């Protein structure tokens, strides 16, 4: 494997012990993946930030790196934490958990991360076409590759910390032209009417991931309105939950989309889409939970408009970032006056809904549905519109 002079020096410890450890890990992973070299990245996004995932030892590890003077060498954002850092009392977080989470936040901050605690870095720090990134968090990776045409693999959470330190990632997979070529044709012509009628964009994404599993699907004849940002985000996040896919070439959306010959073809059927929806069809729910991925300022405004003058008749939780909330302050105030609970820095998947007294949840996100049901919640998956109607009518 080729290493530049600078990379060799870092590896040999000439720039310090912490940097050498990070470089060694990135080089080892590159060797395992049979990458010919490393590629410089223009930003990093770290996942695995919650105290529940890192534990005491993970926090210690980050603190040690920070105390050795290690700094992130590229602009670095971070995924949601285990609770809202300001409204942690409302989320019933104990002192110990609070302190552990704050140690992680402080270590990341002192290494120079922008502690965004958010899963949509493409809104906060949007990359450009062709840029190389080291992003963990599957929905962000899928969005960057498929919608923007930036280049990143689905980097691992811990590995993304080390890549952010060295500012490089293994040059392999979705970083390369060959790795971005479509591997399977997925035809949605037989389900597009159903999705247009029902709004089941998220279930559609889950199905695309489940049938393709790996590689780069070339997605054709999709429903109109799939190109709307909120639908795309739900669609792509769900692809990430049901597969290890990091990019979908979506007709009419992806800048790198072009027709290809000779691919294996999968035609999606309405029955398969219905079985995705049936998988999460809890009859009743304690709360509606929205924000997987985190809601954008536009989505918050839209939601506030829909709820204006109404009070929600069921608990209604919304998850977003501090960044988005600051750009939709009026909407947040309006949502709260309609009885909506708004949480930042965290989400329904890494937070603890049980502590909020919620056992059964309704969501518009198949990704959230997948992870919540794994954690033991009863889940209803339904389009946002339907959930809004159900909540307003009681």
């Amino acid at each position: 494997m080729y290493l530049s002079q600078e990379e060799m020096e870092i590896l040999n410890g000439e720039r310090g012990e912490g940097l050498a450890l990070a470089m060694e890990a990135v080089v080892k992973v590159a060797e395992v993946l049979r990458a010919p070299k490393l590629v410089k990245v223009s930003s990093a996004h770290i996942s695995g930030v919650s105290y529940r995932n890192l534990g005491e030892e993970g926090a210690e590890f980050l603190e040690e790196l920070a105390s050795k003077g290690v700094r992130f060498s590229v602009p670095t954002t971070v995924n949601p934490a285990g609770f809202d850092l300001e409204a942690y009392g409302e989320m019933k977080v104990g002192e110990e958990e609070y302190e552990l989470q704050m140690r992680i936040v402080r270590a990341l901050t002192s290494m120079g991360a922008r502690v965004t605690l958010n899963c949509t870095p493409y809104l906060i720090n949007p990359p450009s076409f062709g840029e190389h990134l080291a992003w963990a968090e599957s929905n962000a990776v899928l969005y960057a590759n498929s919608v923007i045409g930036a280049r990143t693999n689905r980097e691992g959470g811990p590995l993304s910390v080390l890549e952010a330190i060295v500012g490089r990632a293994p040059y392999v997979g979705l970083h390369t032209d060959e790795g971005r070529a479509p591997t399977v044709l997925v035809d949605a012509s037989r389900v597009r009417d159903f999705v247009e009628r029902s709004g089941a964009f998220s279930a559609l994404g889950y199905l695309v991931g489940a049938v393709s599993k790996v590689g780069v699907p070339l997605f054709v004849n999709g429903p109109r309105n799939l190109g709307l940002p909120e639908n795309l985000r739900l669609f792509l996040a769900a692809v990430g939950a049901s597969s290890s896919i990091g990019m979908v070439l979506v007709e009419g959306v992806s800048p790198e989309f072009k027709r290809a010959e000779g691919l294996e073809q999968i035609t999606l059927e309405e029955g398969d889409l219905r079985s995705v929806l049936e998988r999460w069809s809890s009859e009743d729910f304690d709360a509606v939970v929205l924000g997987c991925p985190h809601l954008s300022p536009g989505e918050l405004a839209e939601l506030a408009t829909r709820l204006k003058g109404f009070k929600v008749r069921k608990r209604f939780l919304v998850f977003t970032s501090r960044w988005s909330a600051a750009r939709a302050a009026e909407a947040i105030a309006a949502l709260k006056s309609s009885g909506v609970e708004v949480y930042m820095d965290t989400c329904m998947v890494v937070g603890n809904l049980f502590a909020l007294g919620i056992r059964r949840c309704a969501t518009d996100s198949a990704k959230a549905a997948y992870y919540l049901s794994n954690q033991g919640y009863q889940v209803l998956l339904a389009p946002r519109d339907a959930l809004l109607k159900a909540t307003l009518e009681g």
Partner: protein
Amino acid sequence: MERVPFKLLNATAVVAHVTAFLGRGLVRGRGCGPLVVSEEPISFYGGVDPSTGMIVERGHELYGRVIAGTILVFPYGKGSTVGSYTLLRLARRGKAPAGIVNMESEPIVVTGCLLGGIPLMDNPHPNPFKLKHFLNGLKAELSVEEGSGLLRLAPRGF
């Protein structure tokens, strides 16, 4: 005389000759312990209890086994990438395997072993899975240097 099934006899003959496995060295170090061989991949996040080192994934062939201090042989890691932190957590609590041998390592295990200082080798020759039943429980030493690794079985009675 007790009849020994042919297949068993055959494998015994092989075992009698196999005393070591050579592989690609990924994380340097030396470790010693009883061999535990799993033909199923392992998810460290959610599949292994980070405070005890016990396999807690239901239905896994190692369910209920403690992997602390063993030379753990499995095909590759699976599941969430946060599994790297689980390996680090195990190592810091003294509950990690003394060494890991994979058929083909992937980033989760490589990163975790590097952070936790757990010796790691992959691509072992000959294939240890074919000798699984004879290897399980045998004491072995894994030593990994730059580029290459060696898993040696301890002499019998050792």
